[in-house]
């Protein structure tokens, strides 16, 4: 039934439905599975700590989460980032609230210029390199209290014993300011786990492409809508932008319905694909016992 309905919706209704679906999936993952991103990154830290100490790398729960999320990302693109990461969803919420307030007080939201954002997106690799190096040297544990993720996870768990976390709190507040001004600020510029994901060879089947020759000349609606300002790759190529979070906003923005994932047959049924991806991820999480 739902399939038939989808084809008879107006463009605006489709867009709204996709927006709601994403918000609901994000909310559920945020409430019930909020720790996957820190667990996966703890896997990265663990591997480098062991390497630095000359110890064996065991298949601990952190490493399993890391491996599974990396495999998932290779197959489906960064769907985890766009739909399931608690910190990413938190950023979306902060940005949404900021834009909503700007609308209410009739002020134009401040946006970071594109020349700045393209440079900032390299910072996440620096963040990753620094953390990994600290782990390798065995001094990472001395940075206890610096991580904004720790502060966020503690607040999420209603654990308010934040003494000694001053730097972490300051960083979290600064990040929230960034999140308000720029959609997906943290994911794009700072996230060390995102840096790992963005370097993976993502398969072209479920990631988004466009039929470039059908584009309206001079139209860049998708790039403008994109939180990462991506110009999508040509259909039929293996190219995938590492900064694409699979938020799929571009699909509904394109005036020619020109954007689809690698498997052409799924065109127009991206909702089904979204739900399947979310359910597969849920299944993996339950299997891992997160």
């Amino acid at each position, binding site marked *: 039934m739902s399939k038939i309905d989808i084809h008879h919706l107006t463009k605006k209704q489709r867009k709204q439905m996709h927006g709601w679906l994403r918000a609901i999936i994000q909310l559920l993952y945020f409430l019930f599975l909020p720790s996957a991103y820190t667990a996966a990154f*703890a896997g990265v830290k663990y591997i480098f700590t062991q390497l630095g100490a000359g110890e*064996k790398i065991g298949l601990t729960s*952190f490493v399993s989460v890391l491996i599974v999320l990396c495999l998932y990302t290779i197959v489906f693109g960064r769907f985890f980032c766009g739909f399931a990461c608690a910190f990413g969803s938190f950023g979306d919420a902060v940005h949404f609230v900021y834009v909503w307030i700007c609308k209410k007080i009739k002020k134009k939201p401040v946006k970071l210029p594109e020349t700045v954002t393209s440079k900032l997106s390299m910072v996440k690799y620096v963040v990753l390199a620094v953390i990994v190096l600290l782990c390798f040297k065995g001094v990472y544990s001395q940075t206890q209290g610096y991580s904004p993720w720790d502060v966020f996870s503690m607040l999420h*768990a209603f654990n308010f014993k934040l003494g000694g976390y001053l730097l972490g709190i300051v960083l979290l507040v600064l990040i929230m300011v960034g999140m308000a001004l720029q959609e997906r600020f943290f994911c794009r510029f700072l996230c060390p786990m995102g840096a790992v994901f963005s*370097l993976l*060879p993502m398969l*072209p089947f479920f990631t988004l492409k466009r039929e470039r020759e059908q584009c309206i000349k001079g139209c860049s609606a998708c790039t403008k809508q994109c939180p990462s300002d991506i110009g999508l790759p040509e259909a039929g190529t293996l*190219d995938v932008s590492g900064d694409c979070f699979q938020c799929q906003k571009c699909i509904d923005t394109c005036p020619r319905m020109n954007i689809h994932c690698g498997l052409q047959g799924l065109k127009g049924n991206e909702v089904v694909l979204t739900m399947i991806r979310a359910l597969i991820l849920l299944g993996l999480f339950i299997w891992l016992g*997160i």
Partner: protein
Amino acid sequence: MKTFWVRAVNLVLIIALLIGYNTVLTLRDKDDQIAKLTADLESANLYKQSVMQSQEDAAGSSYEDGIWKGEAQGFGGTIQVEVTVEGGSITDISIVSAEKEDGAYLSMAEDIIPTIIDAQSADVDTISGATFSSTGIKNAVAQALEEAAK
């Protein structure tokens, strides 16, 4: 097109390196084990003596037999444990409830249990990466052992 293959090759290289690294360490571990066993055999008597000594030590600081309960603050809530004491020493530690802990973190933190049993004391290092949950287990065991020492 090219980036995809570069990334794929890099990933394969990294995985191969890590597996290779682990294999080398496993082989080295085996060598160490053989060396250790040989050494143990040679000094069998000495070893026996030391075992007896350590048993006496353990007996000196022994706990009262029984199943002792303890609880402490973990990451998101309270962790409850049960410590089994048999013949004056800790034989088993089980986690009764840790509802507010995250699965991945808790299973990592559980690695502290064999360490505590080996040391026969809750005074051991916490598990890095799962500091909150393992500290919770450690403190809960300490509380149970306080009961057992009375």
